[in-house]
């Protein structure tokens, strides 16, 4: 037949495709199991999670993300566990976890859980998931937004064995739950992550039994080659050159200095180089992240432009080179706090797209205010007398692009399928009343195509509580592109009986019953000169009340 059949250990193109689809499907099955069985809403409702499977060399073969900003961050977790324990000491049924920001990237709340997958006493791969744990014993409930050292942010775990041969390691589980304000949630979510690992194990075993190690190795090599080839071709199609975009965050925390982000994108042939040289050093607050999170962020930016539908594998991003200054906000080292790992990443993605607009104006979109716009209330629930934590990320206006207005009130780049908090659920659970939840007229940047609108949400606290907010990008709002105007920046106003004040960033501020808090998130940038917007589009905006 074909020359491929001469060697039984080489996978033919058909088998390669069957195996490629099976890897993706196994990751999807793991993710479904995790999302459905998780204990806390932040995982099952907001999808603050990610799963991946790896071959025995810790090479990514399939992944499925709830949050796109977790793209490819599980690889370093698997490598760290292998480095620490060695594969020789691993047994079927083992489960390992870690959350050290300097190893795996994001904040300590994001806990990576993984298991070696065995077939006939041999490791064939690893299944892994990452999910946001609600409370890991930080200095304040849920998370500390005013931390200055990582030691204040909860327990920090290097590679840790939590299950041995299928049995929980009791003293470790005890440690994890004893040091959390929400022990049931910790145990519930850990079990959900373990269940996801087990699904991955079962399906990988089936696949390896069916095809054998050699065929799968051969197929994996081909799969990696395909990913690489597609991405090289996509970059080669763009013009060569170097472009830089620069911006800054308002501050690294309440009262802090601005944080500078500089993104230089170079295209040379089929390679892309992204340099973040010139960005601020690691901050004294908690706005920092480990290098792995930065790499994941740059990859996400790349993915927005280059072949978005192609599954990510170990062959992806081979032509994407990233340089990050050491001890910068993008490569924080001990003892930097890392709670807010995303704002500078969001800005970097915005700047990446801005820089790349020079090479591929039709493939990018105008800017957004690129941050999650977090608002959190904590306190004692007046009826149950138990601690409550209501935290949420809110939507923003997205940038316009050639051919379309930006989307309104939608989660930021990093958010993906993250869902908002239903008013009815929030009011039922917490002593809060929402007075309005609406689009914010006029907030989108003007242009031939208009930026998307931000939103407005007004809360009344019904009993004494504490407020934390994290709103960004008033100095570098959603930027217009090719003559389009910037979107409006965000705003937070707190009003009580006596007075009214701005609270774009605040941590654990007491607010008494009856206080009203109004948040307004930023709009997206416009695309093209506003003079070129059609009369019909302008009239339509007025008719619908998008502009008033």
């Amino acid at each position, binding site marked *: *037949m*074909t020359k491929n059949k001469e060697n039984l250990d080489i996978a033919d*193109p058909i088998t*390669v*495709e*069957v195996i*490629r*689809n099976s890897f993706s*499907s196994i990751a999807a099955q793991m993710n*479904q*199991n995790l999302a*459905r*069985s998780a*204990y806390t*809403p932040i995982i099952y*409702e907001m999808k603050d999670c990610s799963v991946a499977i790896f071959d025995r060399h810790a090479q990514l073969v399939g992944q499925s993300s709830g949050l*796109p900003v977790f793209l490819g961050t599980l690889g370093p977790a698997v490598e760290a566990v292998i480095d620490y324990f060695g594969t020789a000491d691993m047994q079927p049924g083992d489960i390992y976890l870690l959350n050290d920001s300097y190893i795996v990237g994001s904040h300590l709340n994001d806990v990576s859980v993984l298991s070696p997958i065995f077939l006939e006493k041999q490791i064939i791969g690893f299944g892994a998931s990452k999910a946001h744990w609600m409370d890991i014993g930080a200095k304040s409930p849920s998370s500390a937004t005013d931390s200055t050292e990582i030691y204040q942010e909860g327990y920090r775990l290097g590679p840790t064995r939590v299950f041995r041969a299928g049995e929980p390691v009791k003293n470790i589980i005890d440690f994890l739950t004893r040091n959390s304000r929400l022990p*049931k*949630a910790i145990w519930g979510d850990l*079990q959900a992550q373990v*269940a996801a690992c*087990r699904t991955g194990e079962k*399906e990988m075993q089936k696949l390896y039994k069916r095809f054998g190690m050699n065929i799968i190795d051969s197929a994996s090599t*081909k799969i990696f080659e*395909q990913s690489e*080839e*597609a991405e090289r071709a996509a970059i080669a199609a763009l013009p060569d050159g170097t472009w830089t975009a620069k911006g800054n965050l308002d501050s690294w925390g309440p009262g802090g200095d601005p944080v500078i982000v500089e993104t230089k994108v170079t295209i040379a042939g089929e390679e892309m180089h992204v340099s973040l040289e010139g960005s601020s050093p690691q901050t004294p607050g908690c706005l920092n992240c480990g290098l792995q999170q930065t790499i994941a962020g740059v990859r*996400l930016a790349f993915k*927005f432009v280059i072949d*978005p539908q192609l599954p990510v594998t170990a062959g992806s991003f081979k032509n994407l080179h990233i340089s990050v200054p050491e001890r910068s906000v993008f490569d924080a080292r001990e003892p930097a706090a890392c709670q807010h790992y995303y704002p500078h990443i969001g800005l970097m993605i915005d700047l990446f*797209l801005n820089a790349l607009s020079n090479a591929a104006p039709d493939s990018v979109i105008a800017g957004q205010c690129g941050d999650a716009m977090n608002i959190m209330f904590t306190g004692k629930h007046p009826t149950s007398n138990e601690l409550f934590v209501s935290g949420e990320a809110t939507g923003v206006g997205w940038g316009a692009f050639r051919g*379309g207005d930006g*989307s*309104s*009130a*939608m*989660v930021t*780049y990093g*958010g*993906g*399928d*993250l*869902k*908002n908090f*239903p*008013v*009815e*659920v929030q*009011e*039922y659970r917490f002593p809060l*009343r929402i*007075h*309005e*939840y*609406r*689009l914010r007229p006029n907030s989108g940047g003007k242009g031939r195509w208009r930026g998307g609108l931000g*939103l407005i949400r007004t809360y009344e606290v019904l009993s004494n509580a504490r407020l934390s907010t994290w709103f960004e990008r008033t100095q570098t709002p959603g930027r217009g592109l090719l003559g389009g105007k910037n979107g409006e920046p965000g705003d937070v106003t707190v009003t009580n009986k006596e007075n009214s004040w701005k609270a774009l960033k605040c941590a654990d501020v007491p607010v008494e019953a009856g206080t009203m808090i109004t948040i307004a998130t930023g709009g997206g940038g416009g695309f093209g000169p506003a003079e070129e917007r059609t009369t019909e589009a302008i009239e339509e905006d007025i008719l*619908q*009340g*998008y502009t008033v």
Partner: protein
Amino acid sequence: MKNRKIEKGVRVAIDIGGTFTDAVAIKPDGEILTAKASTTPKNLTEGVLNAVRDLEIEPQAVTSFIHGTTAGLNALLERRGANVALLTTKGFRDIYEIGRSNRPDMYNARYKRPLPLVQRRNIYEIDERIAADGSLIRPINSAEIRALYQQSLEGNYDAIAVCLLHSYRNSSNEKALKEILIQELPDIHVILSSDVAPEWREYERTSTTVVSAYVAPIVEEYLSNLEDRLKKEGINCPVLVMQSNGGVVSAQVARHLPVQTLLSGPVGGTTAGVAVEKSVKKILEEGLICVDMGGTSFDVSMVVDGAAQIELEASLDGHDLLFPAVAIHTVGAGGGSVAETSSGGLRVGPRSAGAMPGPACYSRGGNEPTVTDANLILGRISTEARLSGDLQLDLMKAKDAVDRVGQEIELEKTALSEGIVRIADSNMANAIRELTVFRGIDPRNYALMAFGGAGPLHAVALAEELEISTVIVPAYAGVLSAWGMLQADYRVDRSISHSGILGDLQDEFIIQTTQMLSTDAQTTLNLGQMPDTQYEEHKAADLRYLGQEYTLTVPIENLNNGWQNELRKRFDDAYMIRFGHCNRDETVEIVNLRVTVTIPNQPISHNRIKNESASNPISYEKSWSGNEWVDTPVYQRDNLKEDDPISGPAMILEPDATTYIPSGWQLQMHNEAHLLITRIDS
């Protein structure tokens, strides 16, 4: 004919498809008649009447007329619905447009939400408020409503959707609002969220209410017109409508719950699965996985414990809906799925050549190889086969198309064709795995029921992938949905939000509440003057561990002493099956109470003319089987004899599909005319 005594008791079912409108009738003596007419998209009723006439039955003999209507679904998909105004609580005008803020297509920077059915300018705020505990903060101000109707509503809309905050808990403001509106605007539909979907989460409830209002006038007009026309034809029995939940109700009820008719057509196949499951129960381990494979898509649904699997939420064309519907999972894989190379690899689907240009072998100008072309090359579709009635397939065109791709990746056309089919099969199997794993179901314990133009062709290969040992190609495969509808039960679902801790619930209250729901459901069923019958009542509760959000629906067997403990145990067990772990020490919370009232339909007793002569092939054709070309017998399905097993490889032809049986599998004709294909134990 004129003087013949008319024998009453003929049951008729009609299903409207994209191309054909199918009719099935069963006479009291068990004889089954079928007919097909072209679908008439501009006025669906015409096609329905043509199909009924083709049955050649006496109109007066018809005592039951079941209809799967696509009027609502088409209006939604084609955006031809009513002009709707939406009324919301003050401050929440944009709940509908904001949705859940998420971006499911997460790597697409230009993702846009589907266009809303109600534009922002048609959304009005009402100054009223209910608190989360159901207490009234601000009642409806009738002066405000009158002003609104005078200034904005009057004369401008066909339907008004109302969704106020926390109305799932206290519907008094919604009801008061409706009262005022129907005084002022008696002729238009006013749809309340507390009627349509009395469950929390304001966006999903709003979306459901809006969709309901959007299709209400269309469904109403369609059903009224259909009833009138049927009367003129002499068919005077009440019209029954298939609902998304797999049961039927009278047309009168369907008008009140138009959103429940949305999946009226598509669920017919699963309803047929329920009927097939009953007739083959003896040979089943657990249940049926139903797969419907056509030209562009592949639909999967399940029959478990004799009932179609229901989900409480659905998403249709990007519209989120809270209603109980048969769970149908759609994957982009079908006969028209295109095979192409990408970065040195081979991809099959999800892109489809559709009906135009269609597979290369259709000779309609398509030159890309598809799954159908590959099957033709492999000899798994008989050259005798005529698709869609009279389409002759062109083998040469199929070979040319496959060869072109084969050259790119250095594969000869037979190997490539086999590969294309294998990839398509494996993609479909993966979709089934994701669906079953997600529900904690092991597909190996299920039988596979395959239908649709391409289903019977791939069924056995899919079964092999999934380690399933029984495949069923049902009788009347050409008119399967209509045949299934004939056997659907009458069904009405009712639910109410009720929060409390399991173990502490007051028995008296639960008994009263479920009684109330049950009475309400029975009243609804009776709206169409149902014949005297036995009701069956099923109670269930949506439960979750305290602090969780998603719930599992667990049946309540009875409310006898200790029922709460019993229910608790069943919840833990169900949770274990679904999620692989459970928390027997954790507090369990109840969220909703559900009551389903059904009236079981009379079972069909088939009266099939049996073939006494042995099954003989009509011809032999070469097919590719186990790495060689094998002479494969081709049979006409109509000529098969019971108890006369046929071993693979073999092909069975029927007008709209070919069943392919590879070696290692054996066909047995079931006494109700289903094809049963089982693995031969080696």
